[in-house]
């Protein structure tokens, strides 16, 4: 079990800056995020889109903002738990016991939820029967490509993941690539390559088709795909891969006894604390009168929540407000020389 002064859920800009604020005032913290990388929506949804309303930064992309925030955390030692989703939060004496889907457990007086619109999960097929085969013969990501060798794989999707895996797997498998329209949205080189492979008979291309049903008793045997004109085709297949991007889902947070309205968590504006003592919500996921869903608001909220954490993490000490420009203690924490 990991003991920490504060656990931050979400490694987006708000979570990152909250971590900075905690470390600055002398608390330790750990960060959990369901994505495999740091940055949240900024890195997953709009890495290349310019942002124009970060104070003192006239223009930067989601990726640049993330890089700068990570740089700002360099002086500190912060453990990130990526690819992990927090499943359970339970009260144990004065602490919160937090468990992730990988079995990591934390004991902490403070939990800061900086979860944005929720955790990123793969978008799934809408057909019901697909659930039955999920993680057995139907996947939304590839963990071990060796299992596909010599088999028939049906890949759905029109972006880079679908294209890249179709190209890669066509070397050693029989690949069907199925997409809802003729146009693909991946890198042009990959699109050209897929069309070439289709011409050479290395990939069977089905456009304007979507999944209609998955068939098989124990193991997946075939799928029906449906054309825009309602024609149905049956394809023998051993495995199905679906690449429809990611969706944000509130997930288990909904079950932690917090006041939730329209996917946001109600907080006060002094500590950004929820209705549960020691659980805070900051950034896009919190709501209060006048809430603005801006990154700059998330920074402010995290700074205040961090001060509230101090009280619970160091009940016998008094928090003293200090400036980074003048405080010797803070400069020591930052590893910079005092004048």
């Amino acid at each position, binding site marked *: 079990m990991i003991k920490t002064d504060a656990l931050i859920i979400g490694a987006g800009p708000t979570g990152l800056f909250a971590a900075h604020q905690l470390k600055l005032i002398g608390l330790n913290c750990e960060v959990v995020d369901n994505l495999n990388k740091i940055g949240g*929506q900024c890195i997953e*949804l*709009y890495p290349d*889109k310019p942002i124009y309303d970060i104070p003192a930064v006239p223009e930067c992309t989601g990726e640049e903002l993330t890089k700068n925030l990570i740089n700002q955390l360099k002086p500190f030692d912060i453990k990130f738990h990526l690819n992990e989703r927090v499943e359970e939060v339970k009260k144990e004496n004065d602490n919160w016991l937090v468990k992730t889907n990988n079995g990591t457990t934390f004991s902490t007086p403070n939990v800061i939820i900086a979860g944005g*619109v*929720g955790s990123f999960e793969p*978008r*799934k097929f*809408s057909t019901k029967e697909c659930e039955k085969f999920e993680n057995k013969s139907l996947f939304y990501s590839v963990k071990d490509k060796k299992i596909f060798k010599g088999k028939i794989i049906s890949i759905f*999707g*029109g*972006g880079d993941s679908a294209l890249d895996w179709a190209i890669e797997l066509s070397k050693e498998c029989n690949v069907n690539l199925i*997409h*809802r*329209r003729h*146009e693909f*949205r991946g890198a042009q080189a990959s699109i050209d390559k897929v069309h070439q492979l289709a011409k050479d008979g290395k990939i069977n291309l089905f456009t304007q088709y*979507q999944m209609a049903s998955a068939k098989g008793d124990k193991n997946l045997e075939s799928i029906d795909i449906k054309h*825009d004109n309602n024609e149905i085709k049956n394809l023998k297949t051993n495995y199905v891969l679906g690449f*429809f*991007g990611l*969706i*944000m*889902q509130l997930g288990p947070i909904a079950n932690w006894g917090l006041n939730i309205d329209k*996917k946001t968590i109600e907080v006060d504006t002094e500590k950004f604390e929820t209705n549960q003592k020691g659980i805070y919500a900051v950034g896009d996921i919190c709501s209060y009168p006048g809430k603005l*869903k801006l990154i700059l608001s998330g920074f402010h909220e995290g700074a205040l929540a961090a001060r509230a954490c101090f009280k619970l993490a160091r009940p016998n000490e008094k928090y003293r407000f200090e400036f980074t420009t003048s405080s010797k203690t803070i400069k020591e924490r930052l590893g910079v020389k005092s004048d």
Partner: protein
Amino acid sequence: MAKITYITHDNQKYEVEVKNGLTVMEGAVQNDIPGIDADCGGGMACATCHVYVKEDWFNKIPKKEDGEEDMLDMAFEPKTNSRLSCQIVVSDEIDGLEVNIPSKQA
């Protein structure tokens, strides 16, 4: 102003007046119409404000711009008459528009 009719998957009809300049997505969110999530807030980055536009209207409203079709690849059960409601701007010309909301956004 335009009257927009939102029809949910279980056939509940919501008729609302939406101000010009707002989007069909904003019209739904501001009037608490269920089934339009709009997670990204109108940035064309999430495909959770997906609607089906009645055939006769589909060709009348302004066409999709670059990127919308790409996002629709990720929508729940996209059809040929799918649109992202955050990309349909309300004007007098679309007075009477009817859109169907899918059973889920993801």
